[in-house]
């Protein structure tokens, strides 16, 4: 057996899971889809005393429409998000981003909450949650709080979730029906970790951008919200934009690193082109009457 020994528990309720987390005092790890955790266990990079399997908690499942948004249970499988006809209409960029997560076989197990809670800097779903203005609910025996996705990521694999907290829902605010989805990923091969990518959405009214959310993945230690370019684009007439200058602003909030796949400078160069080809093309197409 490759993983180090651990105690395994599979609570049926959120309350029971929170009690287990509290008792463990930081020695427990939550198991959702396991598509990132199981390799870490097999390599013994993760050696929890207690593994708390949350897959049998019915309250963590389901996709539902709420007033002003959509609630997605954290253990909803990634392939269930791709197959959901409501999400295809309401949050198309979330569906597109999810198609880029891992492979078909890992998406059958992998969950949206697992990916958002892991905080892999090059992952699609954390950045998409940040770009679309999502938030998560965190529950513990101490209470319940809501954390904006924009405040969730502190560093690579480090989130604002405390060791005794369980993510119990993910809330995406509504975007209007004519929202333009913006997504582009650069990877060596489909299914590989992304070299970098851009994700988000924009709303155009009367030739001007009325609402926009954009975030990079693989361009820094966390998902990087492109705040400066959002501020520069809002309310501007699209036809008169200086795209070269805007592309420069688009990477102003990033902090890419050198690694074995690419230098930081290469990532910035590619990101400028990704921004221009993705956002410019989509907005140009979207503003046609």
């Amino acid at each position, binding site marked *: 057996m490759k993983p180090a020994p651990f105690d395994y*528990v599979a609570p049926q309720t959120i309350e029971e899971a929170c009690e287990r987390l509290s008792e463990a005092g930081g020695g427990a790890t939550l198991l959702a889809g396991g598509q990132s955790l*199981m390799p870490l266990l*097999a390599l013994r990079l993760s050696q929890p005393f207690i593994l708390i*399997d949350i*897959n049998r908690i019915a309250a963590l499942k389901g996709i539902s429409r709420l007033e002003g948004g959509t609630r997605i249970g954290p253990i909803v499988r990634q392939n269930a998000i791709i197959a959901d006809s409501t999400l295809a209409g309401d949050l198309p960029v979330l569906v597109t981003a999810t198609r880029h997560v891992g492979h078909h*076989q*890992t998406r059958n*197990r992998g969950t949206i909450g697992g990916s958002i809670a892991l905080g892999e800097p090059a992952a699609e779903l954390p950045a998409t949650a940040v770009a679309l203005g999502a938030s998560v609910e965190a529950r513990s025996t101490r209470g319940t709080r809501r954390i904006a996705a924009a405040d969730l990521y502190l560093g690579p694999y480090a989130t604002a979730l405390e060791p005794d907290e369980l993510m119990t829902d993910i809330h995406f605010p509504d975007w209007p029906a004519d929202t333009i989805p913006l997504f582009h990923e650069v990877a060596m091969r*489909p299914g590989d970790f992304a070299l970098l990518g851009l994700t988000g959405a924009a709303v155009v009214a009367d030739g001007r951008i009325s609402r926009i959310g954009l975030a990079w993945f693989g361009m820094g230690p966390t998902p990087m919200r492109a705040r400066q370019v959002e501020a520069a684009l809002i309310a501007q007439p699209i036809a008169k934009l200086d795209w070269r200058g805007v592309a420069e602003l688009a990477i102003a909030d990033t902090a890419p690193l050198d690694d074995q796949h690419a230098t930081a400078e290469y990532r910035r160069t590619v990101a400028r082109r990704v921004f221009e080809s993705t956002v410019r093309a989509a907005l140009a197409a979207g503003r046609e009457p």
Partner: protein
Amino acid sequence: MSEHGIQLTINGRPHAATVEGRLTLSDFLRIKAGYTGVHVGCEHGVCGACTVIVDGQAVRSCLMLAVQADGASITTVEGLAADDGTLHPVQQALRDEHALQCGFCTPGVVMTLAALTSGAGKPSARTLLEALSGHVCRCTGYQGIRRAALKLAGESQGPAE
């Protein structure tokens, strides 16, 4: 270290066992249940050789714990051919297209294609080819596997990129 009683169905037969929490489904299927058609390659979710069908869906059995399969219905490659030896359509397509050489990755490939082609309606070639990206084959150069997938989709040519 905890031990757990599990009951599950493998290839239509009921099984009951007591397993340690850390036992992976792949090791359980091979060592405890004897289904050595489940091939274990990388053991951390990269190669796809250990793919089995759990409750109708292709998953990597090295990325699941045996205890998580309590109550599940599992199909391994041993469960596909008919009792008289007639191959499953996926197996036949791979054979017809010379889609294997050493055969190590083949059970995983078979289970992914079987899961996707077992439902109502024919999956597109694009769907099957994208799913095949979850498998590593070091012998064939993939062309035979690709042809088999196209045949299963009923398409003579792959999707335009």
